């Protein structure tokens, strides 16, 4: 287990992957106040090489790029550099993009309309090992795991959300902050974070059957 930046008492290192130079410049200017932006890349190949070289704490990852997109970067990096955390930052909030990136291993998903402060907070949360769930993402997850008792589930332990997790997601989707969820459900913030992390893990690990069913329901395949 590598030490996090906060434990070492240094600034977070962040790497930007986006094919729009203007956008990279904007994010760098906004985030530079809070963290160290250690590198940028505009393509999948460049990103894979430079992330391996710089080993940042967090990678801000664009979803749509000409040569394969964020999914390709995640697939290439996750095996070799498990300590690098990925936060998807996209202009698209289509369900298949969001869920696809999370399943590939991103720790959170925010859209490009996010405010600089919120983005900095999201980066910090991802670096600390938490997941960043926007209300929209919570809605997609609830949709993806919608209980359908008439369809048999191959591995219920893995694929279903517990009632508590579902409650947490609902409150997230209703626009509650972690602190408010904790107050509402009479649990600690730490427990809320645990539930959210479990949801993320289930989302990433849920089996192919569930995924294909989810996609088929939305006529994605």
């Amino acid at each position, binding site marked *: 287990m590598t030490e996090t930046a906060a434990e070492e008492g240094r600034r977070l290192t962040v790497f930007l992957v986006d094919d729009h130079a203007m956008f990279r410049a904007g994010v760098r200017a906004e985030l530079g106040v809070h963290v160290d932006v250690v590198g940028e890349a505009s393509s999948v190949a460049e990103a894979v090489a430079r992330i391996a070289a710089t080993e940042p704490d967090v990678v801000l990852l664009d979803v749509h790029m000409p040569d394969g997109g964020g999914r390709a970067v995640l697939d290439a990096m996750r095996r070799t550099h498990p300590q690098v955390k990925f936060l998807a930052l996209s202009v698209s909030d289509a369900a298949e993009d969001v869920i696809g990136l999370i399943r590939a291993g991103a720790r959170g998903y925010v859209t490009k309309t996010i405010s600089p402060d919120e983005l900095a907070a999201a980066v910090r949360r991802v670096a600390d090992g938490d997941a960043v769930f926007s*209300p*929209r993402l919570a809605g997609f997850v609830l949709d993806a795991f*919608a209980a359908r008792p008439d369809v048999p589930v191959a591995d219920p332990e893995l694929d279903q959300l517990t009632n508590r997790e579902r409650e947490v997601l*609902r409150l997230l*989707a209703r*626009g509650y902050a972690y602190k408010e969820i904790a107050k509402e459900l009479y649990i600690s913030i730490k427990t809320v974070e645990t539930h959210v992390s479990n949801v993320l893990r289930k989302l990433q690990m849920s089996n192919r059957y569930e995924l294909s069913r989810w996609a088929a329901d939305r006529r994605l395949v």
Partner: protein
Amino acid sequence: MRSAAITATAVPPPTRRLYRPREHRVIAGVAAGIARHLGISVTAVRIALVLLLGFNGLGLLLYAVFWAVLPLQAPTGVTPRRDLVLLLPFGAIGLGVVLLQALVSSDNGVAGTVGWLVAVIAVGAGVIWHQSDPTRRSQWTDGASQTPWLAAVVAESDRRSFVFRFIGGGVLVAVGVIGVLAVFLPKGNLTTVFNGVIFALVGLLGVGVVVAPLLWRTFSQLRSEREGRIREQERAEVAAMIHDQVLHTLALIQRNSTDIKEVQRLARGQERSLRNWLYKPAASPTERFSAALEQAAAEVEDTYAISVETVVVGDTQCDERVAALVAAAREALVNAARHAGVRTVSLYAEVEDDELSVFVRDRGAGFDLNAVEDTRHGVRGSIIGRMQRHGGKAVIRSEPGDGTEVRLTLPASRDSVAAGKENAR
């Protein structure tokens, strides 16, 4: 007249493929095409063709065959009109050659005449073939909407000249066939009849050769035309959307660049409509619950210049009760937009088996429900009263300083949820 050398330097041919160039043509561009392909002077080719006229019309025959077989060069920019004056010297030379041949060797009369007649038939068939080109015909029927390069082609072939040429080609073929018969019939012996039959067979074969590729070409051109039209339609749809929405919004943003609120409102509305266009299947707000909610959120966004973070899980069909739920949610959004004093409001809706629920939450000023006067109808009438009338429930939780949440729940009627689930599959 331009020489081939100038042609080659002025317009280098992209590939050494045999085709009929659009520029530098006198009749159909056959001579220019051959000259360009072989890299020799176009004048030499033309003279050779004219001289070959003397050998039983061989030049004419060759020209007709090349004309029929060679593809026309793809259009590149503006095509100059052909210069018919160029035809005069070659016509004169050809006439001279034919007269000379007639004077020098009058003994091979029959064979020479037949050669000429076959050449005439070939030219007539060529004319018919080229005039029956379906794309050309569609261009003529299209009328006014022609691009400049088409105009150059069409200028010489409007509908009347098309009919004229078609009939002309037919007349040439008929004259040729009749001529062949007229040459051979008077002799009356077995050999000439046999020859006549063979010529008839050759004629039939010629017709087959003309018609078969014509049909094939007609079908393939119709097919490619249709594919092109579909592509064009898709492109036109995108272009129309961008023109109607994106460009107008950008223009408005430029004009209102000092009014930040207005710019944000415009950008938000444009973003929403582009997203819907790109990612969402079109659903009617009068039929689907999620579409109705999103429309209500969009209206509030546009009217009050706030952003509504809308999340809808599941979907169902709209009926009277669901419409009331949407109306109550809309009222809650309007209240949040007007009184909370915030930029963002959350709207979350979920469709469950037994219940529809909608949550509208803001982090704004909040208010004391008990302090609201009875005469104010916004909350009591439009939200609480409306939900009660339709068998639902509205709970408003608000603390001054901690924002407001309006929770609306509506028990689902069995059949509407079932129908909604069926539709979602």
